C-alpha cells in the first residue's frame, strides 16, 4: 500500500476548506451572555504522571529487597562453609584444635591440655548423611561437633592425584554424654581446601575418654530446608463477572512468580503477569461518565461484552498450614495492582429506538495500585530437590472500579505453577 502523497495532501486540504458542513443556527445570544459574565479561565492542571515513576520505584525496591535477602542468604552459607568453630555453651565440652600434616595422612589432634596423635588408619567412614553441624564464630578454641558423614579420605581409598581431603562435618557431645547445646539447626559441609591456613578438622574416632564422639542422626525435611528465594512460572484460566451477572467467556493470565521464604511457615510472593479479563454487563451497570462525550447525544448502552488486557503485579503473604515430607497445603492473601493496557468493548446501543452494535477500542496506560484483594488456597508438591509443583484456586475481589465503564469486576481462577527454589 503506497503512502498518501502530496497530491493527496493537497486534495485533503481543499476538502478541509470546502467540505459541505451544516453551520446550524447562530448561537450569539448564549455566547453574548457568557461574555457578559466575569471571564474565569479554567486552569488546565499540568500534572506529571507520577504513576510510571511510582511503578518504577516499587519494582526497584522489590528487586533490591529480594536481591538483598538472596545475597544475605548466600553469603551466610558461604560464611558457614569457610569458618568452622564456635564456642560451646557447655563448659564441659573440650575445645579442640586439629592440625593435619598435609604431606601425610597422619592426623595430629590437640586439645586444650594434651596432644593426641591419631593415625589415619583410625579414620572412620560413615554412611549416614550429614545433617547438623556447628556454626562458626572464629573463637580460638572451637568446639568441634561431629556427626556421622561420608568422608573421602578414609584409609585405603585411592584419591585422585592432587586432590586434598574433601568434606567433613562434626557433632560433638560434652563429657557428661549430653548433646552439645550449641548444635544449630543449620547444616553445612567444610571444604578443607578453604582452610589451608587453619587447622583442619577431620572426622575420626578418638579413643580419648575426655571426648566422646557420638553420631547424631537428624531427620531431614526437604521442604523445611527450602528457606530463601524462589522463582517460578505460573498461569491459568480466569473467569470474570461484573457484580452478580453472568460469566461470558474465559480469560487467562500467565507470568513469573517471585517469592522469598522466611521460615517453614511464612513466605512473601510477588511477580508480574500478563492477563486478559473477559466480562459481560447489562447497560445499567456500565457507567457512561468516561465515554458520554464520545457518543451521540441520547445514545444508550443496552449491554456490553468486553475484554481488557493488563499487567498484574500481585503482592501476597503465604502461610503453610500443613506440611508433609513431600507436600504442603497453604493459603495466601494479598493485593494485586494493575497496569491497564487496552480495553475492547462491543456495545449494543439504542438511539431514538434503533438498536445498533458498536465497537470501542481504548488504549490505556493506566496504573491502579492495590486494585484487587486476592485470596487463595492451594497445594504444593515437591518434584525434585528444588522444584515444586503448585495448584492454587483463587478469588479476586475488586477494591476499586475499573475500565471505561467503572465496573466492579470479580474474578476467580486457578493458578498452576512450577517453582524452583534457590534457598538452602
Amino acid at each position: 500500500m503506497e503512502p498518501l502523497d502530496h497530491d493527496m495532501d493537497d486534495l485533503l486540504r481543499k476538502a478541509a476548506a470546502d467540505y459541505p458542513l451544516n453551520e446550524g443556527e447562530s448561537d450569539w445570544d448564549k455566547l453574548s451572555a457568557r461574555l457578559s459574565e466575569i471571564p474565569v479561565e479554567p486552569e488546565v492542571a499540568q500534572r506529571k504522571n507520577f504513576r510510571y515513576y511510582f511503578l518504577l520505584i516499587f519494582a526497584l525496591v522489590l528487586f533490591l529487597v529480594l536481591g538483598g535477602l538472596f545475597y544475605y542468604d548466600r553469603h551466610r552459607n558461604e560464611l558457614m562453609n569457610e569458618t568452622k568453630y564456635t564456642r560451646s555453651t557447655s563448659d564441659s565440652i573440650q575445645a579442640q584444635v586439629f592440625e593435619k600434616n598435609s604431606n601425610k595422612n597422619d592426623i595430629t589432634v590437640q586439645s586444650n591440655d594434651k596432644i593426641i596423635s591419631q593415625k589415619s588408619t583410625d579414620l572412620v567412614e560413615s554412611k549416614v548423611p550429614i545433617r547438623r553441624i556447628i556454626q562458626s564464630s572464629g573463637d580460638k578454641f572451637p568446639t568441634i561437633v561431629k556427626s556421622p558423614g561420608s568422608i573421602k579420605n578414609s584409609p585405603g581409598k585411592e584419591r585422585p592425584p592432587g586432590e586434598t581431603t574433601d568434606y567433613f562435618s562434626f557433632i560433638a557431645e560434652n563429657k557428661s554424654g549430653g548433646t552439645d547445646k550449641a548444635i544449630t539447626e543449620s547444616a553445612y559441609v567444610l571444604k578443607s581446601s578453604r582452610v589451608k591456613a587453619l587447622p583442619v578438622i577431620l572426622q575420626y574416632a578418638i579413643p580419648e575418654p575426655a571426648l566422646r564422639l557420638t553420631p547424631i542422626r537428624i531427620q531431614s525435611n526437604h521442604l523445611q530446608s527450602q528457606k530463601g528465594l524462589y522463582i517460578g512460572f505460573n498461569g491459568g484460566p480466569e473467569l470474570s463477572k461484573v457484580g452478580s451477572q453472568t460469566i461470558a467467556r474465559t480469560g487467562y493470565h500467565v507470568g513469573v512468580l517471585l517469592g522469598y521464604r522466611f521460615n517453614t511457615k511464612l513466605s512473601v510472593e510477588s511477580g508480574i503477569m500478563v492477563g486478559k479479563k473477559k466480562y459481560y454487563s447489562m447497560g445499567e451497570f456500565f457507567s457512561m461518565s468516561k465515554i458520554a462525550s464520545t457518543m451521540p447525544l441520547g445514545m444508550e448502552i443496552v449491554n456490553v461484552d468486553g475484554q481488557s488486557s493488563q499487567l498484574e503485579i500481585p503482592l501476597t503473604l503465604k502461610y503453610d498450614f500443613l506440611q508433609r515430607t513431600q507436600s504442603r497445603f497453604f493459603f495466601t492473601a494479598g493485593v494485586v495492582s494493575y497496569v491497564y493496557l487496552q480495553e475492547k468493548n462491543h456495545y449494543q446501543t439504542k438511539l431514538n429506538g434503533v438498536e445498533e452494535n458498536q465497537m470501542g477500542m481504548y488504549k490505556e496506560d493506566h496504573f491502579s495500585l492495590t486494585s484487587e484483594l486476592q485470596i487463595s488456597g492451594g497445594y504444593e508438591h515437591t518434584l525434585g530437590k528444588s522444584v515444586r509443583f503448585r495448584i492454587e484456586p483463587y478469588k479476586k475481589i475488586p477494591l476499586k472500579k475499573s475500565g471505561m465503564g467503572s465496573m466492579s469486576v470479580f474474578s476467580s481462577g486457578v493458578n498452576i505453577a512450577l517453582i524452583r527454589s534457590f534457598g538452602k
Partner: protein
Amino acid sequence: MDDLLNIVKGCISNDHKYQKMIYEKYRGFALKTVFRYIYIYERATDVMNDGFVKLFQHFSSFKWQEVDDLEKMLMGWIRRIMINTAIDELRKAKMVPEIGGIPEYVWEVTDNSQQADQLMLYKDLIICIKRLPPQYRVVFNMYVIDGYSHYEIADTMQFSVGNSKSTLSRARALLQKFIKQEEGAIVWSL
C-alpha cells in the same frame, strides 16, 4: 479591510456589536476547523463557542503588522485558538475513541449539481479523517491540513517529536485504508 480593521479594534475594546460581527463572519470557518478534530457534531458546536469565548477574552493580544494581511492573520489566529480548544476537549475525554456514526443532518445539502460530486468527495474524505482514532486524527489534521511542524505538534500534545512522526505515519496508513474502502463502496454503489 478598513471595515475589518474597525471591527478588530472594536473587539479589542470588548464591544459586543463588533464581537457579533466577527462571530457571524467566521463561525462557519471555526466550526469546520473544530469538526475535523471533534467527532460529535453537537460537541463540536460547543467547543466552537468555547473557542470564541477565549478569542474575545484575549483579543487584546492579537497583533498584526500589515493591514493587507489582517484577515489572513486573523483567520490564522482564530484557527489556532479553535484547534487548541478542540485538543483540550479531546484531552479531557482522555483521547477516548468515539462510537456511533455521523448523522446526515450535519452535512449541508447543495443544489448545485456541478459542485455536488466534488462536495460529496470532500465530505467522504472528511469522514475518513474523522474515523481516525483521536490521537491520529489530531496529529494528521495539525500536520497535513493545518501546517504545524512536528515540534509544534509534540509541544502541544506533550509527547516526543519521534512519537509525532510515527503517529502521523500510522495515521496516513490507516487513512489510506479507509479511502480504499470508500472507493470500493462508491464503485459497488455505481
